[in-house]
């Protein structure tokens, strides 16, 4: 049985300047201990998806569809019931550790607070648990008594990860954990993510970092303009990407020639009929501008949203 099933999830934000359609009809599945990478450019809806799973989107967000977590539809829960799932079942490690950590509380306090969510512990026990968590993410003991501004960027990221692990969640979501880190730190964090997820828990990695995605995830979903355009096993997707956007994304990677995709991602307030990538697609046909491409399973467990790929 799947741990997480997302069905036809749509999120839009009615704003004074017009409604932003951040996610449209996203369907994904995640098995127990399966690791999924969500890749796509900025504004494709990756972080909105994470926010929707934890129900932490701004109040004005309109969310439709279903998010089933171990047989419970998270979208149907009361706020209080939802709160119980956060941290203990599903944990989110937000992006930008510098702003995601509270500047006036020590690292140890912020970890301990998460630990104590499951009920009161003797002070000694809680302290031991905090030390254990810090060691797990490779932080020195003094990080417990340090304030966030006294820690380096890499240490802040580790601290944030230890918060996510505090209650040993079944599902960990990390939003761009390698963003803004230099090369050697980045590999350290990727290794750490491998250590804390492999064979232990389900993991959703939101990233621009294709190498990290390939290393850490068994399955990959490519998001474009609020839609999943390609979804399948990582080895298949990386060796033979089918969707023109995915191909363009890979070709734009510095290691593969730094070829940019022509044009701009669409503005999500005014979406026209047809394939959302069609205006930028070198292989577009007349049908692409006329009809929305369906999300089709082209081989077992491999989905693509493109007219070209199955006709």
């Amino acid at each position, binding site marked *: 049985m799947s741990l997480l099933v997302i069905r036809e999830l749509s999120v839009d934000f009615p704003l004074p300047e017009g409604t932003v359609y951040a996610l449209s009809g996203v369907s994904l599945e995640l098995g127990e201990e399966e690791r999924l990478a969500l890749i796509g450019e900025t504004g494709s809806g990756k972080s909105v998806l994470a926010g929707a799973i934890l129900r932490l989107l701004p109040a004005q967000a309109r969310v439709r569809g279903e998010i089933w977590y171990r047989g419970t539809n998270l979208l149907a829960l009361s706020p209080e019931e939802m709160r119980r799932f956060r941290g203990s079942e599903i*944990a989110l490690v*937000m992006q930008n550790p510098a702003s995601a950590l*509270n500047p*006036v509380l020590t690292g140890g306090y912020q970890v301990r607070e998460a630990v104590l969510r499951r009920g009161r512990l003797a002070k000694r026990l809680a302290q031991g648990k905090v030390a254990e968590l810090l060691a797990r993410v490779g932080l020195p003991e003094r990080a417990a008594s340090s*304030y966030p501004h006294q820690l*380096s960027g890499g240490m802040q990221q580790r601290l*944030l990860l230890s*918060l996510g692990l505090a209650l040993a969640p079944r599902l960990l979501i990390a939003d761009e954990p390698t963003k803004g880190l230099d090369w050697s730190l980045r590999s350290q964090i990727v290794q750490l993510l491998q250590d804390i997820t492999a064979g232990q828990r389900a993991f959703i990695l939101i990233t621009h970092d294709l190498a990290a995605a390939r290393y850490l995830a068994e399955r990959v979903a490519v998001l474009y303009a609020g839609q999943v355009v390609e979804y399948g096993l990582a080895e298949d997707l990386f060796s033979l990407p089918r969707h023109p956007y995915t191909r363009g994304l890979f070709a734009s990677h510095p290691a593969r020639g730094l070829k940019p995709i022509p044009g701009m991602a669409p503005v999500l307030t005014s979406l026209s009929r047809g394939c959302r990538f069609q205006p930028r697609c070198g292989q577009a046909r007349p049908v692409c501008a006329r009809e929305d491409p369906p999300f089709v399973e082209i081989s077992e467990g491999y989905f693509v949203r493109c007219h070209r790929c199955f006709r």
Partner: protein
Amino acid sequence: MFTYLLRRICLLVFVLWGVSVLTFTLMYLLPGERARLVAIYRWGYDDLSAKELATLRREIGEDLPFPQQYAWWLGRVARGDLGYSFVTGRPVAAEILARVPATLELAVAAFFFAALTAVPLGIACARRPGSWWDNLLMTGSLIGVAMPNFWLGLLLILIFSLTLDLLPVAGSGGLAHLVLPAFTLGAGMAAVSTRLVRASLLEVLAQDYITMARTKGLGEGEVLWRHALRNALIPVFTVLGLQLNHLVGGTVIVENVFGRAGVGQLMVEAIASRDLPLLQGVVLFLAFCFAGVNLLVDISYTFLDPRIRYGGAKGNE
């Protein structure tokens, strides 16, 4: 932390010295001979002979050149001697100290009234921006900010003392005498602070670390009390500190409206009777209060914000 304190205290001494130069210069530049003023209060007349005038001038130090006069005066001030009042002949320091309790009582009562209404009301507004109570309180606070306190004081006397006969009109005394002046003095501060608590809390509640606290599964109460409020109160503290200075200034007006025998009233009396040593002493004392309050506010920051307490020291990976 210690060096921070030391630096602040050195700065405080420097500021007070500047104030002393300023007040002494201003008093020196006032027209009229001080010796004649003294003579009027001492003997009732000022048509002194040249010899009497010279003696009196020497006695009060008016014959010395300005720098020496200043040095002479500063030396006495440093020993805690602010001179003698022209009017009563009593030491200025004793005159001021006798009035401090009434002023302190008023300022403290007004401050606590302001802080204890502003924080809960500001929180209530920030939790439901746009609700009916938010709109009501924001309109009310706008009126509160705009209302001059001498006018509010008179209005309150008219309603609560003269019409309803609930509270005494004026004078110092028990708690009943404190209610109206404290409310008058604190109202403006409460209004400004309510708006500030609201704005500051709204800004903090939109920060990433608040969302992060929610991802840990904390309840709204915990998020508010542990994560949001401490951050939100840092700018509130700054402004409350600045407001406290207004408060010291406000006591001058409110004490006169309500006829409270405090330092503010003493100052007005000193001006009216051209009692220069007393006026000088009061101004210096008020300046000392201003600077002291600012120091206390800055120290209290360090308890709220570790980024100040520990400077900008960054750890290394």
